[in-house]
């Protein structure tokens, strides 16, 4: 167990890819641009963004699947991809993923029981909880251990993926769109399960989704990503009920379908051709020439609420249920 403090620390994280298309010169794709946030131990941080926002890239960097181009990442005090093989293996014990596609996450040739205890076998650890107990904790019958993945439904497979992630008792779980591929009624079951497991084991979650409603249901703090930059971040209530950034407003409009919010115009630009200045200015209803010329620096408008916008626009937010 590493020292106290935040479970996840991300500071000035950037990631640039060099993309070469056949006959053209290599272009650089800034997938992540100077992103910083922290997640306290036992909390849930929700990262919401649409396509091209860089959220999956951030997940991969935090998991140690890819190196960052710049910036600092600490998960439970450790840096991913630092040190030799042993250090990296130890890092993987601390943070585990749950990914989007339940049909691709499980090896088709192994039985469920073997899939779940594979991380335990890799680390040669003595499992604290047996496979049967893990299955029970994720709401499956113990005899499921003998089945093959193709015999299970999407929701059941996702439960198996969660059981596998928890087998080696990580401190942090990175959830990259964990319920997007599931039906609504199953989504709710899985989200409830994740909530229960977090309470029981004191896990720290990074919840990544394109669906603001899902993120809002699970997170204590939320960050809004657009084209690789954090547009706004704050506590859940601040984001949901008094968002100050126009992009967050557009997401709220999309999630509630209300006519009172101004939606975003046009399409999301390609990350390879980032707009100059503020990334959102091409679609923002309140954009000015300053927005196109100058990229806004993030500033705090409250001890917990940070936005990257030149202007102080009035807050927007979803109506609190029950109040007209």
């Amino acid at each position, binding site marked *: 167990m590493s020292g106290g403090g935040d479970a996840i620390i991300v500071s000035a994280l950037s990631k640039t890819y060099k993309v070469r298309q056949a006959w053209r010169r290599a272009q650089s794709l800034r997938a992540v641009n100077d992103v910083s946030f922290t997640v306290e131990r036992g909390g849930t941080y929700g990262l919401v963004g*649409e*396509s091209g926002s860089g959220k999956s890239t951030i997940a991969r960097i935090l998991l140690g699947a890819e190196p960052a181009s710049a910036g600092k990442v600490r998960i439970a005090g450790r840096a991913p991809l630092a040190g030799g093989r042993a250090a990296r293996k130890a890092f993987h014990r601390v943070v585990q993923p749950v990914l989007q596609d339940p049909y691709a996450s499980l090896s088709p040739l192994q039985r469920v029981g073997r899939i779940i205890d594979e991380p335990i076998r890799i680390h040669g650890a003595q499992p604290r909880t047996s496979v049967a107990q893990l299955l029970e904790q994720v709401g499956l019958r113990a005899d499921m251990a003998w089945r093959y993945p193709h015999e299970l*439904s*999407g*929701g*059941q497979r996702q439960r198996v993926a969660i059981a596998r992630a928890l087998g080696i008792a990580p401190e942090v779980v990175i959830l990259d769109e964990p319920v997007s591929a599931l*039906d*609504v*009624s*199953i*989504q*709710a*079951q899985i*989200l*409830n399960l994740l*909530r229960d497991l977090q309470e029981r084991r004191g896990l720290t979650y990074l919840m990544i989704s*394109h*669906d*603001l*409603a*899902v993120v*809002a*249901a*699970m*997170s204590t703090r939320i960050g809004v990503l657009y084209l690789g930059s954090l547009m706004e971040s704050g506590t*859940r209530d601040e984001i*949901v009920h008094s968002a100050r950034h126009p992009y967050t407003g*557009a*997401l*709220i*409009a*999309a*999630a*509630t*379908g209300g006519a009172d919010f101004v*939606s*975003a115009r046009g*399409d*999301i630009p*390609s990350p390879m051709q980032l707009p100059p200045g503020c990334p959102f200015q091409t*679609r923002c209803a309140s954009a000015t020439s300053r927005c196109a010329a100058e990229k806004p620096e993030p500033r705090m408008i409250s001890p917990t609420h940070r936005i990257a916008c030149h202007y102080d626009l009035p807050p927007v937010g*979803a*109506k*609190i*249920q029950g109040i007209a």
Partner: protein
Amino acid sequence: MTGAPLLEVRNLTTSICSSGGAVTVVDQVSFSVAAGRSLALVGESGSGKSMTCASILRLLPPSGRIEGGQVRFHGQDLLTLPEREIRRLRGRRIGMILQDAMTSLNPIMTIGDQLGEVFRRHHGVRDRAERRRRAVAALEAVEITGAAQRLDSYPFQLSGGMRQRVCIAINIACAPDLLLCDEPTTALDATVQQQILGLLKRLQRERGLAIIFVTHDLRLAAQFCDEVAVMYAGRIVETGPIGAVFAAPAHPYAEGLLAAAPELGAAPGRLAAIPGTPPAPGSVPVGCRFAPRCTQAEAICSTAYPDWFDWQERSAACWLVPKRLAVPARVVETTA
């Protein structure tokens, strides 16, 4: 307020041949849509909503087969029409928009050419310049800026939202009476989704289109449609005006579906999940198909399939309707 139904589906039943025999995926489905109105077909995986759409246009996979029922379009039963006649209806009187716009478009033809093809085939426009002119007009009708330049783009050069707009443009170029939309916005980003829905709504108003909107998202349906039909395990379980159903769902499944979806305005906490999973199409339980998962099920629910109750323009197939809603409900039909 509703006019005569443009499309009337009665007891439509479709099955799919699999290795285990014929499996019924659409079971005695009945609904109707009037001109200028939109109906949402809401259900989860395996509910049969996509197959219902396919059955209307008789575009089933080779292993699929329409077992019975009627699909009356302008009074004519589509299921008994010869193949030649149905082909003339497809695209011209009844359009279809699918989920994945990328695979709906020909990747090696420019947008202009694909639109031009519609004008050539359906309107007999021989002049190339005239086709181009109409293509530009069609793109502008779907709110694509810089339409003249876009004509020479290929589908891969456009974003997802743009591609879906092009698909819509191709569909409405023939001025159809009915548009079938199968999850047209599911694959799009949230902000783009709103734009496409707004576009569809505007087009519907301007052209008096009837729309059948298939989706798994009841809230999305509420934003967009006038009426809703909720499907479960191949059958329709509830119909009615969207506002009324949304405010006070009659069928426990519809109620569960609404409660399970996370809502932005609600306080954070556990979601009201529906326990269990939907039945596989080949193995539906006796009695009400939702009974095994229903928290309010009674003894009769697992022995006899519910009658279809009807009140105030709404209807639902649930034994508990008279009790739950305290309304005098007329039994429309006793289902076998």
